[in-house]
């Protein structure tokens, strides 16, 4: 039994409310159905409703503690963890809490702890994204102090995580210059879903064919108002302004 939803582990038990379906059939099809002794149930429910309910629970859990969460996404190897390590070291006063999502290992949570903040690892196994239910359990285990700023570092993936609301108040996508400046065109869902784009690995720019302006233009055309930061998590470029963005999120709690 978990403290988030009062559930045990079965999927069906997680549904707390629903609109009830009613028998519904028309004309020729209805006649055929009756002949076969069958009936048609009109359901009209979104498949993402279940995740959405857990996301709203997470949002309420966070709001009750004056906490805010950020969903950090990007490809494997984009530098999400390196970026968090750098922010943790640069802005220790933020007292970030990090929920790490990976298919396997504790490596990222260990890195974040070494950098100086609390971290909890969620292993999704074969799962390609964090979902709001797993994050709810993570938050309950974490028991964040009131006023915490929490980062959900999602599973490295530019596709699936974009679909699943976790209860965050901002979404950040990290794109490194080694991945190519056309990624917003190839993965439009992700860039449309985010509020902030971090272009990482600026230190490698001399060695790759990546046009910062082009990547920024593609992304901001898909998502007008997207905030863009160009940084190098390892060399330190641009980290002051990105840390200030995290501070501004912290102040919004």
């Amino acid at each position: 039994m978990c403290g988030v939803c009062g559930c045990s582990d079965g999927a069906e038990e997680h549904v707390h409310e629903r609109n009830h379906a009613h028998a519904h059939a028309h004309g020729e099809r209805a006649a055929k159905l009756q002949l076969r002794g069958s009936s048609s149930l009109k359901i009209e429910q979104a498949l993402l409703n279940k995740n959405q309910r857990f996301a709203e629970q997470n949002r309420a859990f966070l709001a009750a503690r004056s906490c805010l969460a950020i969903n950090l996404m990007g490809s494997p190897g984009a530098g999400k963890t390196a970026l968090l390590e750098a922010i943790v070291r640069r802005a220790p006063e933020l007292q970030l809490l990090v929920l790490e999502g990976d298919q396997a290992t504790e490596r990222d949570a260990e890195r974040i702890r070494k950098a100086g903040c609390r971290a909890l690892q969620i292993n999704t196994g074969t799962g390609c994204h964090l979902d709001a239910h797993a994050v709810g359990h993570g938050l309950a285990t974490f028991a964040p102090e009131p006023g915490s700023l929490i980062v959900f570092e999602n599973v490295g993936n530019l596709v699936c995580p974009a679909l699943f609301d976790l209860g965050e108040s901002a979404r950040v996508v990290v794109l490194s210059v080694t991945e190519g400046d056309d990624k917003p065109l190839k993965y439009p869902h992700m860039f449309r879903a985010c509020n902030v784009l971090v272009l990482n690995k600026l230190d490698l720019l001399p060695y790759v064919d990546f046009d910062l302006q082009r990547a920024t233009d593609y992304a901001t055309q898909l998502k007008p108002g997207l905030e863009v930061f160009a940084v190098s998590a390892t060399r330190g470029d641009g980290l002051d302004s990105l840390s200030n963005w995290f501070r501004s999120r912290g102040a919004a709690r």
Partner: protein
Amino acid sequence: MHELALTQDLVSLIAEHCAGRQVTRVVLEVGKLSAVVPDAFRFCFELCAAGTPAEGAELEIVELAGRARCRECEREITLESIFERCPCGSISLELLSGEQLQLREVEVQ
């Protein structure tokens, strides 16, 4: 492969509504601008439905076209996929519809 997680949700949603009766047909609406692949759903459905009332049911996927407004030329256009541009060349599109992912109905015996 988020279709697997979504198909598991689809199967539990069906189970909630069919009250243990055998399901013969499932109608799923998939918007052409939603980030899912209908064929992946078909593949996952057979696996996820096994051992549930939806085992052996026919899965009908109704694909719904997308609509968007271009922020450059302000035209309203129909989109067959999320990767299309406006005829004016712009990718700056405000999506109006086409992201549905909804269980429409089930037939039970």
